[in-house]
């Protein structure tokens, strides 16, 4: 029996990163996970983020099933009506395939927090009791989630903005942050001390971000072993079970 904590990455991507031209193939993701000790995680298709939501979400579901990962469908914030239809379809799926979480990518889709579609979709997701994983600068993309009981993980929280996240999280019980860029020497420790290690979720943006760096930061942190276990996988499990 190993003392190593179970690790799950809440931020797996497959498909084409159109900003760099790089591709994520499932076998390459699997290789990174193996080399970093990650068991699996939550996967989204970039096809759904950039081009076509239904076929992209189908791709994510297929990849998840083939690799023993969990699918995280995306919605397109540029298309409020299409998002309504896709969410309705997803919620009508049988319980074993109905998603527990949805990913939003407002930055990649050039959608500002003040746009009507953003707030509308967020309200629908909260009403459906889904956990939301959202990309972008926590200082701005947090706005539509405030004051409505949202359960949300901010995937791109940078340690430069740690103070912004903490003051938000003090007021919003459902706010959590991915560990990806909380990489100052005391960032994870400050969040844990201020609002609890329950508010941190291991997220690496595998395979586009350097997963080794994110995992090392967590495993060499000054969090207790119990806290590392929470951040490594238990918090993600809890977020998906509660949905």
């Amino acid at each position, binding site marked *: 029996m190993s003392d190593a904590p179970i690790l799950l990455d809440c931020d797996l991507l497959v498909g084409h990163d159109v900003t760099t031209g790089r591709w994520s193939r499932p076998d390459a993701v699997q290789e990174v996970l193996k080399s970093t000790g990650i068991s699996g995680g939550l996967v989204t298709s970039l096809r759904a983020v950039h081009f076509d939501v239904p076929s992209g979400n189908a791709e994510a579901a297929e990849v998840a099933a083939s690799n023993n990962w969990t699918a995280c469908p995306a919605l397109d914030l540029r298309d409020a009506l299409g998002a309504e239809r896709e969410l309705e379809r997803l919620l009508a799926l049988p319980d074993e395939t109905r998603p527990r979480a949805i990913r939003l990518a407002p930055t990649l889709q050039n959608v500002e927090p003040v746009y009507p579609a953003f707030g509308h979709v967020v309200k629908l997701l909260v009403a459906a009791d889904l956990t939301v994983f959202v990309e972008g600068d926590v200082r701005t993309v947090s706005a539509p989630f405030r004051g409505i009981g949202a359960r949300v993980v901010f995937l791109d929280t940078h340690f430069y903005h*740690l103070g912004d996240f903490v003051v938000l999280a003090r007021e919003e019980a459902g706010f959590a942050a991915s560990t990806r860029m909380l*990489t*100052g020497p*005391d960032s994870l420790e400050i969040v844990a001390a201020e609002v609890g290690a329950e508010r941190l979720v291991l997220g690496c943006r595998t395979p586009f*971000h350097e997963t080794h*760096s994110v*995992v090392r930061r967590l495993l060499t942190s000054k969090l207790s072993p119990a806290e590392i276990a929470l951040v490594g996988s238990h918090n993600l499990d809890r977020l998906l079970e509660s949905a």
Partner: protein
Amino acid sequence: MIVDVHAHWGPWFFSMDVGSIDVNVDLLDRFGIDVQLVSAIEGIVYDAPAGNRSLAPHLDLDPRLRGMVVVDPRRLDEARADLTTYLAGDGRRRWVGAKIHTDYSRTPIDSAGMRAAVELTTEFGLPTLVHTWGPNVVDLADLAAQVPGARVIAGHMGASGWPLVARAAERCDRIWFEPCWSAPEAGRIRWVLDRVGPGRLMFGTDATLIDPSVAFGAIEAARLDPAEYAAVMGETATELFGL
């Protein structure tokens, strides 16, 4: 032998508590870093001479610490005085390089002020670590080519501009690259190594702004062979900085 060529001492203005030199020492101990080249945060973000003055006594606290004299390209008379003062006597054993930040000093690399600053540090025989971001990593190579005898290190290796490193390396053989970055894109260390060779890449952490685990993780992901590892982690820096 592990040499961290890009590190800092002092408080940052973010929500973090890293101002004490004890933080540097703790990170050196925990990550097995043998030598760390530090510049004063105060010198970079506010007042170069005052920062250098504040750092000086701290360099005596741990034999692993070496100083980088911060040069503000807008205050070259004071920089000359600092270099004269700190390099006098046995000062070169304590101060081994210079640091110039492009953004905080509001001085583009392709400007007359930056060229004069590098001419000054070159006159004193110091390798100079220059903050690079995006395409200006190529500008730094061009600057090095224009200043006879200059030896420059591209801090952050251009960060998001890392795909331009190969082009920069071709422009001049007196530019080295240091890859620390809080948002490391996957695979860039291997990509750069395969194009510029291990003699042009040096290990840096950006501690105490960034936890060293981030840089170590990126190195781990690149799967260096023993000769590459020895060069990148210490040999090249030892020779360049005369450690």
